[in-house]
């Protein structure tokens, strides 16, 4: 109750409340709209992630557990954003490069 009281007083003082419910709503909505547009089910996204990992693993050794893939919207354009922590370049890839 105290926290809600404080947040209400803050809102009166014009302080933007962190974690206000409208921000939460907007975040959730953005994510929903992106997924609706791309029409990629979570199952498909998982399958794509696994295939991507297999391809990339031929060249670099990546931390499979730490890989992230998500949809994001940047400047009106939906993008697939992925983070793949590289452990090291595999010897085969190094050999191909030389």
């Amino acid at each position, binding site marked *: *109750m105290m926290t*809600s*009281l404080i947040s*209400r007083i803050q809102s009166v003082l014009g302080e933007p409340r962190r974690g206000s*419910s*409208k921000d*939460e*709503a907007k975040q*959730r909505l953005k*994510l*929903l709209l992106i997924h*609706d547009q791309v*029409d990629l*089910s*979570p*199952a498909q996204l998982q399958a794509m992630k696994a295939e991507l990992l297999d391809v990339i693993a031929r060249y670099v050794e990546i931390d499979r557990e730490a890989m992230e893939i998500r949809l994001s919207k940047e400047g009106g354009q939906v993008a697939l954003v992925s983070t793949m922590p590289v452990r090291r370049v595999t010897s085969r890839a190094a050999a191909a490069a030389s």
Partner: protein
Amino acid sequence: MAECIVITSGKGGVGKTTTSANLATGLALSGKKVVAIDADIGLRNLDVILGLENRIVYDLVQVIEGECRLKQALIRDKRVEGLSLLPAAQTRDKSSVRPEDMKKLVNDLKELGTDYIIIDCPAGIEQGFKNSIAGADRAIIVTTPEVSAIRDADRIIGLVEAHELPEPKLILNRYRPGLVARGDMMNREDILEILAIPLMGIIPDHEEIVISANRGSPVVFDELSVVGAAYRRIVRRVLGEEVEIPSFDVQDDGVWASFKRWMGLTAAREVV
């Protein structure tokens, strides 16, 4: 004994999905095993109101078409034991499901040991409505105190009875005591006189509903909320208890009461 309840209204935007989410959550909070089914194929929203949208893998149409097992498609709500959601497909249309499919689905859920199956029916009286009531044992009609909503509710009551379901019950949503007191909103007697079905509960119009929808957390979770309390009473009535339906005190619309509510010091008082 397991029971399947369809939440329907005819008109869109009167609160079917919010009612379904709160009823399903409330029943689970009472210790029941509950499955909420979103029957609005192509325009799913129950997942969002329940805050489970990021956990969808399979949907109702995939279950019906045999692409996955029923249990795989059920999303367990981690906040409350016993609640699962069967989401609607987003990229299909209502013709992907037939009434026989829904009957089978409901029977399968009952065989899995589900106590209550809550079906969130789409607006309208077409295929989606027919699918939704096919497996239902009884119906709850949601309406608001507006001419258009009550007219549609009347139409739906006729259709429910034509499908040989028992007499449906009514939830009166977005009730505003201040407007009723001023004579600018039909009161419960006015509405019951027109619709002539038993009243299951009154849900006051309240900002808490907006916030809970923003957060994807049904208001019935909120112990301090007036609206949550109204839903909890409806849950007890669904479970067969006799619970009085209070009138919402107009005094609580006053400045001091709203100030106290705003401060979070009191939940709105109710008088019987």
